[in-house]
């Protein structure tokens, strides 16, 4: 074996010799046999439905009757006629603008605190991680009681400091802030915090020591050492946070189902309504592809801009 470089599924060495040795061929056969469950699963359960949904997005399809090709009608209806499309997009964007930055900052602060060398750090890590392990249904029930306008804990706390009660989930102005609060409870101490923690623990100690020798205070060390060194994790958490917040469904489905007056009609909830309540599979597919395009654009933009602020040790962003 002279090389391991592979192109088009055939080792260069084998191409160079013009034929595959029997052992190499057996190795490649075994390779494809081993990955075939995943490959078949991906092709049948992911790729094929995705391709089908592209076609369906150009049709009217109610499951029982065959799809009827309507060209760009679904996209035109979505963009120019459907007020709820715009509303659901706005609701989701509004939620994203607050929940992602606050969540990322919160997770980072928590990770910085938990990165201190303490005897109880494992305990705190577990405590902070617990909310992300709580099942969505349990979270929804819990938070509905906390937000309850008469007997909820939050209004009791407001009352204790002399503030008027808020009808959190029943008020168009307050329902999204309420969801942001739940997202922070769930997300600040979850997987994002663990990723930050891993990033922080990978920052070489000697950089801090060198900065200290140069007279840098904690803020300078944080902005000039910590942030650049964990910038790839910051980028990762930002991208995953935005994708996740655009896909919010379970909590809104369980807590408000879009109420009041569609003030919490998240985009995916609206997509679900069209697909499974109104059986407008063609229109729902168009909504899904629009969401895909939005997320792809936002993600590509983040990658494009990341070259300006993300530092990769020993390499570039791409």
């Amino acid at each position, binding site marked *: 074996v002279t090389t391991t470089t592979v192109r088009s599924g055939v080792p260069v060495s084998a191409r160079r010799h013009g034929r595959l040795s029997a052992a190499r061929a057996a190795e490649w056969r075994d390779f494809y046999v081993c990955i075939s469950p995943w490959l078949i699963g991906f092709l049948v359960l992911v790729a094929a439905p995705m391709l089908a949904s592209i076609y369906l997005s150009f049709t*009217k399809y*109610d*499951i*029982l*009757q065959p799809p009827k090709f309507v060209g760009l009608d679904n996209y035109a209806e979505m963009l120019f006629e459907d*007020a709820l499309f715009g509303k659901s997009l706005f609701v989701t964007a509004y939620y994203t603008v607050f929940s992602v930055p606050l969540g990322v900052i919160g997770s980072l602060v928590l990770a910085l605190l938990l990165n201190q060398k303490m005897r109880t750090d494992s305990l705190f890590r577990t405590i902070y991680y617990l909310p992300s392990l709580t099942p969505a249904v349990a979270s*929804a*029930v819990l938070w*509905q009681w906390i937000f*309850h*306008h*008469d*007997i909820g804990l939050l209004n009791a706390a407001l009352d204790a400091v002399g503030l008027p009660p808020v*009808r959190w*989930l*029943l*008020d*168009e102005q307050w329902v999204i802030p309420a969801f942001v609060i739940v997202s922070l409870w769930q997300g600040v101490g979850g997987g994002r915090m663990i990723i930050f923690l891993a990033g922080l623990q990978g920052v070489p100690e000697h950089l801090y020591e060198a900065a200290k020798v140069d007279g840098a205070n904690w803020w300078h060390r944080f902005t000039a050492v910590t942030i650049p060194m964990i910038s790839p994790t910051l980028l990762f958490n930002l991208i995953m946070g935005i994708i996740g917040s655009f896909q919010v469904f379970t909590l809104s*489905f*369980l*807590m*408000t*189902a*879009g*109420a*009041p*007056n*569609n003030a919490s009609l998240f985009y995916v909830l609206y997509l679900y*309504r069209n697909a*499974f*309540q*109104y*059986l407008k599979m063609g229109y729902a597919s168009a909504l899904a592809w629009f969401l895909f395009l939005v997320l792809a654009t936002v993600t590509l933009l983040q990658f494009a801009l990341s070259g300006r602020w993300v530092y990769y040790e020993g390499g570039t962003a791409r």
Partner: protein
Amino acid sequence: VKGRNALTRRSFLKLSVALGTGAVLSSCAATPGTQGAQPGAVQVAETQPGPTAPALSEATIRLSHFEGDLGQRNYSKIAELIKNRYPQITLSVEPTFDQAKFLVEVAAGTAPDIPYVTEQTIPVLAGKKALLNLSPIAEADGSFDVTQFHEKLVEYYSHEGSMYGLCRLYSPYVLWYNSTMFDAKALPYPDDSWTFDSFLEASLKLAEDSDGDGKNDLWAYECQNWHNTWMSFVWGFGGSLFNEDETQFTLDQDPAAEALQFVADLMYKLNVAPQLTLQENKIITPFGFTTGKVAMVQNARFVLPQYTQITEFQFDIAPVPQGPAGRHTTLPTGGFAASASTKHPAETWECIKFLCGPEAQAVYASTRQAMPSLKNFAAVALDPTLPPKNDAMFIDAIEYAKPVHRCPHFSEASAPIYSALELVWTGKESAKEAMTRAVPEANKILAELIAAG
């Protein structure tokens, strides 16, 4: 060599004698109905396969419902009765019915043979050709007499002149009242003389701040974000949900909007009903009738198994109050249909007949769920020894009760109205403003859906 299960001549003769005796006995049995039956004593006549009924094959018939544990227990008992009657049929009961899931299963050819249907889902499912037209099978079945069902119920389970299902039970909405609370205020109980004014007058006396903390803790009425309750006020005021042919919503017209405001004012102006809250993604009351803190609620007989558990107070029922345009109430029903994709139409039909027939009705009646759809069977389902005393009122109420709608496009077209009503039920907007805004939007969607077929 004879197998262990082979039929010997002796056992064949035994079986023949047994079947013959059974046939003679069953021919002597009472005809379906209640002639001579005592109220409360459920006497059961058997559902008979007709002389012209096709021979039945070995089949497993799947029934899908959404009635939870109670439904599962009832249908499992009925499955045993069916097995006794038709040994070749096995009724498999699945508590997982969902309309969208059912449509997907029909398209995939894997739908349950018998879906649970209501008067509102029949036009949706039949319109989408997801149900089997039962008229030809029913007409060919000499033993089936459609007149044993209440005429209204037969009509509600038909679509474009054909029968697509059989109703098994119905329950008009009535006014349930906590007689203990009325007694405490020395108020006369609601009765059929009650108007909206009498209702309001009593409500103002029933609501009370009993502990003096500045907030009411005893309430007169439980408002619900559920059209089966507020439609009696809409119709009573002379309004309507739809125009005659259900092609336009009409809740923005004055009588309807006034009725909706009347209900909202009970919570936000008169303070005689607890304000609605949001729980488990539904806008509901924080204090239900069963807490004993609310004197009146509109509900169907479906809640009776739950209300029977109440021991802290006495309750009874009365007709819903009448408004300037008379007395009206809603009529929810439940029944069975056959999936268009069933591979066993004859066996499925026998099961549907059985599920709506007297033996199955006896099972439903034993759990006091709702009123049986068989005209002559309704009175037997009542038990005068148990509350409510005025139970027979459910039978009378069917005369002035009607379904809220039978519009196949209701779910999608009504969405703007129900979103706007959330603001009315939470005291954020007047009914007139909300409906003036939402109804044109709903009518636009409805017109598009009707045009698209």
